């Protein structure tokens, strides 16, 4: 378990003070994939770097599996770090070493015998799907392949925790999806706790069970991904969950906008809007929709345009609610 307790971090620069984190408290359970999302500059990287003490928090404590990271001396910290691996947006592989030797690197640091290290590194390259790239240098690999090598390297020391700081931000959508699958697979198979830092909602949606939304150094909202995706409360969360809301006011005076949120209780193939037209005689226009189907269930949201009539809006909302759709009149 990772307990982040009231962490603050203030950077002193030549001109001013930057309060990057202002009292963050979070708990990450063993074996879960936890997302930390926020806009650029929200403090995500600073927070994750505080977890392995690459950045010393100005105040607060980080307790990992009962061990207070802020109280360790240099040597103890180095030992603790070998169980908390990290992967990065820019992969950060050793460019002058081939892939096999990159994966061997953390084992070398631990003083493992060369033959054993090579054997383990080969297994790991196999695990990440790159058994034939052992002798290649990072510069000869694509971004996605480099990140796979970085993941193999991160797993070499049998860590309890894997920290991912924007690990897929430099990759195209297909590669991103492959890497996310790999991370999920590792989490399931090895039971490693994963913390995923990202600014992409799609990443959180796809692999995280819980998420914290960071805004300007504070936790704006925290909880189960499904809850936050269907009922965001804070403005920051709303902006992230519904990025293309047309805004509260509609341009057309003669219509009213209603947000319909699907949280997986609706079957993907029930023609809800058509049904509403037939059974309720209410014609709704779909203004925007960002929904997706996960195992046959519908997730996401739609903006519906209804006639400017209180009675019709009321009935539409009633109907939608009866169909397990969460609504918000905008």
């Amino acid at each position, binding site marked *: 378990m990772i307990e982040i307790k009231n962490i603050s971090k203030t950077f002193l620069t030549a001109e001013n003070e930057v309060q990057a984190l202002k009292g963050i408290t979070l708990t990450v359970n063993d074996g879960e994939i936890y997302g930390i999302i926020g806009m650029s500059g929200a403090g995500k990287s600073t927070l994750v770097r505080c977890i392995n003490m690459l950045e010393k928090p100005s105040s607060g404590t980080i307790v990992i599996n009962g061990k207070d990271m802020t109280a360790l001396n240099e040597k103890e910290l180095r030992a603790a*770090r070998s169980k908390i691996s990290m992967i*990065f947006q820019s992969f*950060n592989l*050793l460019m002058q*070493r081939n892939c096999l030797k990159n994966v061997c690197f953390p084992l070398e*640091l631990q003083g493992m015998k060369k033959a054993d290290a090579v054997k383990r590194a080969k297994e790991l390259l196999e695990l990440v799907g790159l058994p034939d790239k052992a002798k290649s*240098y990072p*510069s*000869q690999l694509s971004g996605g392949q480099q990140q796979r090598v970085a993941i193999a390297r991160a797993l070499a020391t049998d860590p309890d925790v894997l920290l991912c700081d924007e690990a897929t931000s430099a990759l195209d959508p297909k590669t991103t999806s492959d890497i996310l699958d790999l991370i999920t697979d590792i989490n399931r198979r090895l039971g490693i706790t994963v913390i995923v830092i990202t600014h992409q909602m799609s990443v959180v949606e796809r692999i995280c069970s819980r998420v914290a939304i960071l805004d300007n150094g504070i936790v704006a909202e925290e909880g189960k991904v499904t809850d936050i995706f269907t009922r965001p409360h804070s403005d920051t969360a709303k902006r992230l969950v519904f990025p293309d809301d047309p805004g509260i006011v509609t341009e057309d005076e003669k219509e009213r906008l209603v947000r319909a949120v699907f949280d997986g209780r609706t079957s993907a193939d029930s023609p809800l809007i058509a049904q509403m037209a037939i059974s309720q005689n209410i014609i709704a226009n779909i203004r925007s929709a960002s929904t997706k189907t996960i195992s046959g269930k519908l997730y996401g949201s739609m903006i519906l345009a209804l006639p400017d009539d209180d009675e019709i809006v009321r009935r539409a909302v009633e109907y939608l609610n009866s169909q397990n759709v969460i609504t918000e009149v905008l």
Partner: protein
Amino acid sequence: MPENNAWAEALEILKNDMPLALWETFYVTVVSTFFAFVIGMPLGILLVAGEKNGVLPLPAWLMKTLNVIINLLRSVPFIILMIMVFPVTRLIVGTTVGTVASIVPLVIAAFPFVARLVESSIRETDRGVIEAAQSMGASPFKIIVKVMVPECVPSLVSNATIAITTILGYTAMSGIIGGGGLGKIAINYGYYRYKYLVMLFAVVIHVLLVQLFQGIGTRLAIKCDKRIKH
């Protein structure tokens, strides 16, 4: 024919003196470069690692002192430094003249220069890679030996080439205090005995040597850089 005579004489002198001079220049250069790196390399690394944000922060006063000493040594012209360090040379070699004695001032002149070259190479290490190593629990020493130096090898080779060609130039000057080599031939025949042709030859050979070292160095630096797709 006086012209032909001058040519014949010059060739005769070269045939007698050149093999030894070449050898002396070569080994003085290599030995001096070696010792200049033995001293300059750790200093150059410290100049980067010891900074406030480095992997092994050292006290500010120590860094300051180090920088001042290096700058001071760098700003003394070699020809003066050679004479200034006579006592040190006598202490180490027992004499202040001769080829071996010339190695001492060469090393003293070259190591601060090498320290700066190494500093600029090591500074190129990607911060992200250092951070990755730190996140794995690498000690500052391990980061230096296993990350910073190996990642900078191509740049270090390029800079070693600059060092060796510069030191080659210095060896010529050490001909003045009796150091052997191409410089001695150029000075003894060209300056003291007006045999310009001999001097010219010595200079040409010196230029060729520089070209040779530079050529090998550049090729090596490219060859060992794994970031370049061969």
